[in-house]
């Protein structure tokens, strides 16, 4: 039997591993993703790593941390010859969590936008 497909979370440092840890704690769904870090890698190596991960896990979606990040740039290069690949940049936990739990991708992105709020404290009267 084929292994289930897994999408990718990619970014700086341990961003992706941290997301997996949080997903597992909240929903037990870390198994839906593969974590990729750009740490110590030159751009060609980041692209090669992402390509190999996509091929190994038949990934359809890549979530990245920064829209200016090297993983984002690498994913954009891959999209040139793999136009079916979807890239979500600036991804935070609410978006990835919603998607991991079966949410529609665009709705999950919207949920992430909505979750981003500023809450200012109020002094007691």
């Amino acid at each position, binding site marked *: 039997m084929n292994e289930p497909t897994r999408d990718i979370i990619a970014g*700086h440092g341990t961003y992706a591993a941290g997301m997996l840890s949080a997903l597992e704690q909240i929903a037990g769904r870390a198994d839906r993703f593969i974590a990729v870090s750009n740490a*110590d890698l*030159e751009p060609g190596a980041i692209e090669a790593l992402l390509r190999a991960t996509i091929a190994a896990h038949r990934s359809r979606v890549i979530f990245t*941390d*920064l*829209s*200016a*990040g*090297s993983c984002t*740039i690498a994913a954009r290069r891959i999209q040139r010859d793999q136009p079916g690949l979807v890239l979500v940049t600036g991804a935070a936990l609410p978006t990835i969590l919603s998607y991991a739990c079966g949410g529609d991708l665009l709705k999950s992105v919207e949920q992430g936008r909505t979750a981003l709020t500023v809450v200012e404290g109020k002094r007691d009267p």
Partner: protein
Amino acid sequence: MTLEIFRIDDRLVHGQVVVGWGQPCSLGFLVLVDDEVARSEWEKELYRMGVPPEMEIVFDSVESAVARLAGYRADARAGMLLTGDIDTMARLVAAAPDIRTVTVGGVHHKPGRVPRSRYVFLTPAEEARLLELAAGGVTVVAQDVPQAAATPLEVMLRGEGPT
């Protein structure tokens, strides 16, 4: 303010540049110098996508960068010039000897390179190129982010840079 930072970074436009340096240094513009990128609309669009709206990015070949350098220096905004490799920066410096400081921001691992710091890996030829720059009077330092201390070239080459 002016074009203040001449940075070698194989990732070119990325988080460290746009956010790590961009915000604390209030960078208003980036000059990306790469002959190949300068010839490709697709490559330019790729890097434009990573730059926030308040930051301008311009693209040059080495030749056009030399021609426009005085204009960039006269710009009232703070700016950073980026090359993706040591050779491109060395060619630029050879044609624009008023560049006095070069920052190695990121040259990552590839076959043939040996580690000199956490984010600088060099082939013997690249090391020689940096030493040539220094011998020509250019101050060469390694510094990935503004909060880190700039490591002098000789310290970095001894492998005593940031780990």
